[in-house]
């Protein structure tokens, strides 16, 4: 894939003080013994206070790696950040010394993970795990940390919080463990919460509870949230904006409603058509032909062209830029307007 110039960040205009979080033209590769996998190829997105951005993609699309780069928790090796900026309140996190980076992590930007069982330490009580952050980072006394821990556990609606401080992770159900992890992430009162597939491992009734909780917390604590998910249903309910990722690029970036009403990238369109829906009956599922690309051999031109029903010669030859459509949304497709206007496919 050829190098593309830094692209403008789409959708809303830049506020006077700059965006809260601004990822610009990020490139990340994994250098392994078998070769170089280009995992992130020029991702730009931004987040303003109080909003929820959904980053949607299938496995290998780079949605989690981007978030790990923002958090500064990429495994290096094999990961190498080749270029780009991650600006938080105007400062580029990538150029900060590790000690200052640490001050941002947790206190400004916190993250929750998909699998609470492996994210929590099995041998320590959950009360200890939540209060550890408070004591080390905020320098709280044992008693204060304990009081704050109970508050946090109440905040995430764990029933009988004070009586459960001494319980270990395995004594909690899946949904309750997820709440413990959310409590840990909230401990230092972050301004940005990154939720990486927070409900994927949960049952639907519990999933609904957790998504409600996250939405309420985001509002009550006035945080901004990045929701990373593969589930188009979950996104529809909570996000303000969506960035759809494919092969390490954001292929479409739009407000939620316009995106679902009329997708402007063939990949988004294919995804929406391929999910069975509870409220729509008797429709044969359309499929996206073929497979996602191997990141060590991303096809030239538009990386989606081998699977795309709209593809023409230009798609094989030229990497599409982000086309800005009338309503300010962007789509990395040579035929974005045609795709957007074509309601039949």
């Amino acid at each position, binding site marked *: 894939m050829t190098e593309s110039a830094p692209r403008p960040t789409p959708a809303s205009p830049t506020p006077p003080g700059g965006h809260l979080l601004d990822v610009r033209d990020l490139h990340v590769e994994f250098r392994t013994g078998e070769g170089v996998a280009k995992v992130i190829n020029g991702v730009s997105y931004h987040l303003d206070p109080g909003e929820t951005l959904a980053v949607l993609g*299938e*496995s290998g699309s780079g949605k989690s790696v981007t978030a790990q780069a923002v958090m500064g928790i990429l495994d290096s090796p094999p990961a190498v950040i080749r270029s780009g900026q991650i600006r938080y309140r105007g400062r580029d996190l990538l150029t900060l010394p590790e000690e200052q980076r640490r001050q941002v992590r947790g206190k400004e930007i916190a993250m929750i993970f998909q699998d609470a069982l492996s994210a929590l330490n099995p041998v320590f009580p959950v009360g200890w795990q939540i209060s550890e952050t408070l004591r080390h980072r905020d320098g709280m006394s044992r008693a204060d940390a304990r009081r704050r821990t109970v508050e946090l556990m109440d905040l995430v609606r764990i029933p009988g919080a004070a009586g459960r401080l001494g319980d270990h992770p395995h004594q909690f*159900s*899946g*949904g*309750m463990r997820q709440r413990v992890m959310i409590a840990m992430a909230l401990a230092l009162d972050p301004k940005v919460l990154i939720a990486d597939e927070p409900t994927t491992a949960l*049952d*639907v*009734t*519990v*999933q*609904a*509870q957790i*998504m*409600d909780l996250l939405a309420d917390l985001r509002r009550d604590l006035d945080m901004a949230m990045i929701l990373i998910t*593969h*589930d*188009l*249903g*979950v*996104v*529809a*309910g909570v996000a303000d904006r969506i960035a759809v990722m494919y092969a390490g690029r954001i292929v479409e970036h739009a407000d*939620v*409603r316009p995106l*679902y*009403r009329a997708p402007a990238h063939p990949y988004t369109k*294919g*995804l*929406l058509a*391929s*999910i*069975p*829906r*509870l*409220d729509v*009956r008797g429709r*044969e*599922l*359309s*499929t*996206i032909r073929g*497979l*996602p690309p191997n990141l060590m051999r991303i096809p030239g031109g538009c990386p989606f062209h081998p699977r795309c029903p709209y593809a023409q010669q230009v798609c094989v030859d030229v990497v599409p830029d982000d086309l800005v459509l009338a309503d300010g949304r962007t789509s990395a497709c040579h035929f974005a307007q045609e795709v957007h206007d074509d309601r039949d496919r």
Partner: protein
Amino acid sequence: MTATADPAKVRGETILTVDDLVKHFPITRGVLFRRQVGAVRAVDGVSFTLRRGETLGIVGESGCGKSTLARVLMRLETPTSGRATLQGRDLLTAGGGELRRLRRNMQMVMQDPYTSLNPRMTVGDIIGEPFDIHPDAAPKGSKRGRVQELLDVVGLNPEHVNRYPHQFSGGQRQRIGIARALALRPEVIVCDEPVSALDVSIQAQVINLLEQLQDEFGLSYVFIAHDLSVVRHICDRVAVMYLGRIVEIGTEEEIYERATHPYTQALLSAVPVPDPEARGTAGIIRLTGDVPSPADPPSGCHFRTRCWKAEDICAREDPPTVPRPADPHPSACHFAALRARSDPTGRG
């Protein structure tokens, strides 16, 4: 592989009958003198029938016993009690050669395409292994040809017969698992969460393949899944399980449009709809608490601890799964009732 059009096999006749099936896993204490102190009631009295050419969905949340049910049906677990017959032959007491013959007619597709294929065997060996166990299923020397036919049927390149599982993607591996299940031309396939490990765009390909194979070979599926949207798409009838029991069973329309059990209604209302416009959170029934432990289920109705309709009778009497006045399909609730008509699945 050609379609086996046998006029004697009438579409719609009952092919699999399960009656009051129970599987309890004992909980033991002590090392030297092991004694049973309790039991995990994974499957606690399940009955249903499966007709030829039909897809029966079994839905429920984790821990409801749906996968144990599949394993008992495949005789991978020995049931505690109950009866099951496949084409009139007893499935649960058969042993030796009889069991082997029965299994030929009933195969399984597993959930995880990464762990259900032996990484040291080629695809040809994996799909051909059923023919080693049942030598009469393929005439001598025709095995390789049959394997290549099967690869073609499930949409893989027949020339890839000598490749290993790691050379395939998740969706392709699930196709290999399906080809293996098809090898002996079974009449019933038990699919245990066959698409839940796959990405959305790949999931649709595998669902379409399963539907196409059903039409082609007249297969009957027991389709176990937790994704209610997928189940609605592929199933003719649906059974909803909660804590080891079927709480409601009916046609796809009866369950999705006219559910009478509170658990089914809550489950359906919680499914996120991929459409920001159609979404009203007002219709969502929010269940509180978690599923109780199957080692110590509540008395009477198992769902009563999370149910907003529960009264004293629910703790005393276990509601049978029988037709209810609200709608003629079986539902295990003392207070079975339809949700408000304007709002069948919980959203306006």
